[in-house]
Structures are given as C-alpha cells and as structure tokens.
C-alpha cells in the first residue's frame, strides 16, 4: 500500500483535491482510503462516502493536531493494510504554520491556494518547505501574473518540490497529480521511520489546562518576546 500525507492550511482545498484525485485513481481500478485528522469538527465523511471512499476521522480536540497525528499514524496504517487499500491518504490541516506532518520516505503533499497572499509561502514552515509535491489551488480566479509570482515564491520556500496547479472544482490537473502519486513508495511499516522535522514543541502549564494569566502561573517550556 502506498501512503501519502496530505497537509495544508485550513480551507486550502485539501479535501476537494483528494476527492478528485481518488476518483481519478478509481478510474484506473485502484482503491483508496482516507484518514482525516482535524481539530474540532470534520464533516467530510459524506463527501468521501458519495464516491465510495472509506474514511476515518480523528479529532484532536485540545491536543496539538500534529502530535495527535504522529501518535496515531501507525494504527492508521494498519487499518489501511487490513482494508487492502492500494492507496492510503492522510489529510491534516496545518493550523499553526509551524506544523511538521511529513515523514521521511513517505510521499508528502502540501496543498496551498493562490488567495492566501504573496507572503504566505514565507510563513509556512516544514509543512510546505519539506513537501515533495506542492499543489496550488484556486488558480482559475486569480490573474496569470499573480499565479506566476505565487508559484515563484513557493519555489523559493521549497526548491526541491514538484509544483502543480490543480483545480479542486473541475479536477483540472488531477490526472497529472495521479501520475506523480503512482510513484509513491509502498509502505509496510512506519516503525523506526522519522519525521522530516521536529514538531512544534510545547510543554508548559497552559498545555496542562492552566487558564489563569500571570507570571506565577507560567511554568515549563516558555518563551518571551523582547519588547
């Protein structure tokens, strides 16, 4: 089974791209499942069910979604193997831009959109910088010039990645994306594999449920702005 991690800022079009991509893979006789990681709410199961894509949803609640992802990915992989998928996609929203969901030796896709602003590629960390494929969406509504500048800036942040424009609504570009995904490595186990970069760290009193403000309540891994 091929495992592909798909990540990207909220509402960048991850689900739309996945739906079109998997429909394309299904046409060539492959089957695929999705594990959707989210924070508070995820209602995409119906959209996936409509084209017969088995989906599991994991809500991280008050935990860092990134940490939640990595502590569940192995079980997710086993589920995929049990279901005898050809492809297993994980979808996770990068909520703090310092997220780092990509695993070494596992095909990593980052989805971002043209409407996020020209500075956005600089603001996203390992999720964008260390992805193998960067999918840019919502290209049909901005000017050619803005697309070119945006793509250039994405490449500045990640020169190694293949950059691809995909239209999540009409599916333009999904055929090309499916050809890239076909080359993803087969993953049997993730034991001993590593993340491509450390995840955002946090271990302070607020992680453990503290709600009061003030120096005496701040304990643990803290950082101060130099005003």
């Amino acid at each position, binding site marked *: 089974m091929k495992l592909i991690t798909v990540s990207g800022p909220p509402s960048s079009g991850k689900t739309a791209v996945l739906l079109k991509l998997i429909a394309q893979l299904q046409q060539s006789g492959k089957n695929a499942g999705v594990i959707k990681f989210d924070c508070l709410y995820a209602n995409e199961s119906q959209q996936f069910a409509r084209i017969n894509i088995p989906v599991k949803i994991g809500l991280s609640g008050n935990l860092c979604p990134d940490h939640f992802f990595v502590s569940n990915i192995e079980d997710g992989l086993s589920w995929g193997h049990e279901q005898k998928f050809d492809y297993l996609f994980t979808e996770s929203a990068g909520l703090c831009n*310092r997220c*780092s969901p990509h695993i070494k030796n596992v095909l990593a896709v980052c989805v971002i959109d*043209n*409407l996020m*602003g*020209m500075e956005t590629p*600089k603001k996203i*960390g*390992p999720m964008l*910088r*260390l992805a193998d494929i960067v999918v840019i969406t919502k290209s*049909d*509504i*901005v*000017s*050619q*010039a*803005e697309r*070119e*500048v945006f*793509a*250039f*800036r994405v*490449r*500045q*942040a*990640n*020169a*190694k990645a*293949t*950059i*691809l424009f995909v239209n999540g609504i*009409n599916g*333009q*570009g999904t*055929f*090309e994306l499916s*050809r890239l995904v076909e080359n993803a490595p087969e993953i049997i186990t993730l034991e001993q594999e590593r993340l491509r*970069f*450390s995840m955002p*760290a946090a271990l302070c009193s607020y992680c453990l449920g503290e709600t009061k403000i003030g120096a005496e309540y701040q304990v643990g891994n803290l950082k101060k702005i130099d005003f």
Partner: protein
Amino acid sequence: MDKNINTAEILLSTVGSLENEFAFVLQYFSDFGIHFNEKLQSIDQRLNELTPDEYDDLGISQEQLLQNFEQFLQQKFSGQKEDNPIQSIRILGGHNKSGEAENADIYLSKGSITSIVGPTGSGKSRLLADIEWMAQNDTPTGRTILINDELPDISLRFSLEHKLVAQLSQNMNFVMDASVQEFLIMHAESRNVKNATSMVDKIILQANELAGESFTGETPLTSLSGGQSRALMIADTALLSTSPVVLIDEIENAGIDRKKALQLLVRNEKIILMATHDPILALMAEQRLVIKNGGIHKLLITSKAEKNNLKQLETLDAQIMELRQKLRSGEEINST
C-alpha cells in the same frame, strides 16, 4: 561572478559584497528569518552562528536550508541559459471519449491565432491540459504533442520557467493588495528581468492602449475596472510571461479593444488559443478547432467568405460600441 553561479562561492562571499547584484541572496535568507547585520561577515559564517535550537524555531535545519538554496539557485538560472524559442506546437491526434481515432495533425505556430469551439464538457480543457503536459500518448486522449516538430523534453513538465501555457479568463481577478507598479515589479523580479522599471512602464503603456479608461502605476490593483484588469493581464502576459502559448477563455467586449489585444499577443509571437463562441473573435483566428465528445472533431481554416463576414460583423460591433459610448455620455439613442 556572473551566469555561472557557484553556490559555494556565494556562501563564502561577505554580506557587503552581495548587496547590489546579489541582493536576492540576502532576501532569500531573510525570507527564512535569517537577517544579516555585519557587512564583513560571510553568509556561511552567519549560518554557522545559529544554534540547532534557533534553526528549530525557524522551521528548517541548516542542512535542509543549504540544499534548498542550492536548488533554488540552479533553477533561478536554468531558465536563462537556454535559447531555444518555441516556434510551433504540433498536435497528433489520439481518440475521443468513444475511442474513435481523431485523425488530427494540427500545427499551432507562433504569432498565430487558433480558436476552439465546442459545448461545455466537450473536452476543451483536456486538449489544453494535453498541450501543457506535453502529452506523449500517456493521457486519457492518447494524444502526442511535438514541439518544434520534435519530441519534447518531458522532464520540463513541472518546470516553472518552461511552463507552456499562460491562461487568461473572464473569471480572473487581481486579488493582491498592491499598486499596479509594485505588482509588476514583483512579477518582473520573479522572472529575473534586468531592466524591471522600463518593462513596467511599457506594460502600463500597452495596457492603457487596450483599455477604454486609462490608469497609472499608482492605481491599486484591486480598484481597476473589469476592462482595465483584463487589459493589464493581457499586456503583462504578452510582455512578461515566459509561456509561449496563451489560452484566452472568452474576453467580453466591455472596456477593452479585443482586436488590439490579440494583435499585441501576435506581435509578441505568442501561440494563441482562444476558446470562444463570439463570432468576431472566432473569425479573427486563422483556424478553428471543433471539439466534440472529448475529441478533435475537425479543423476549419477561416475562409475568404468568413473573413468578409468578419468585416460586416465588425461594422455591426462598432455601431453597438458607439451606442454604448452615447449611453455612457448621457445622450439619447434616437436613431441607429
């Protein structure tokens, strides 16, 4: 230091020596959150100064950053070396949705206009995607694309510098919060254009010739009218886009001189494809591709009779434009 960019050499250069011609290097690192304060320090020294913890905060390791930098430099300059302009694109037919052969062998040459007609869902987008992907009998249509009559280098499929198709459509808008001038300079810089300011002036001048109402470099992008936006997009694509093929998806008649717009693209030796059902635009093209059931159904060469009809249509069009102008200036329309 010139075209032969040597990463090691750049890394050993001092910050001060890079400030002019290689300011983009300093910009590159500062975009990753690494700033330079000492002019006599080399880039390498600065990068070594940072601790692993600091790299952790930046969200990239020193090794990953250096790898990315090297690749970035390579790509930045790879597009410039090559001087093999695209003269023609040739489409060798595959099959339609029912599997019937297309029997097509179509040339699109630079400075020429081809219109594409056919109902929604007939396969216009797929045709364009085949061109962009440089299909080699490896797409659902089985088409093959030749460039300058040769098999293309498909390793360039994802190269930004070699992107074949630029698109212009009715739905596109400028969304950036910048002035026309600021934005065009940004675009020129991303393309490594040497004399950015004179290029920007040229684009604005050309765009104003296409648009009914003129704008300046100071005008914010987002306050351009529909016609002005379209005019700017076309002038920018004609002069600043690297893509040899331009796809135009219906340009409406309001606020832009479509004939001049097409001439501008032709003068800049673009290969123009135009999806349109507007008779004037369709007949301005030398040839017309009819798409049906996912395949190229036929190729029509615009005949003399059609060109004559175009003249009549243009006269009609001019009359309607005149009426519009009258309405705009508050006159009554008593006779036509």
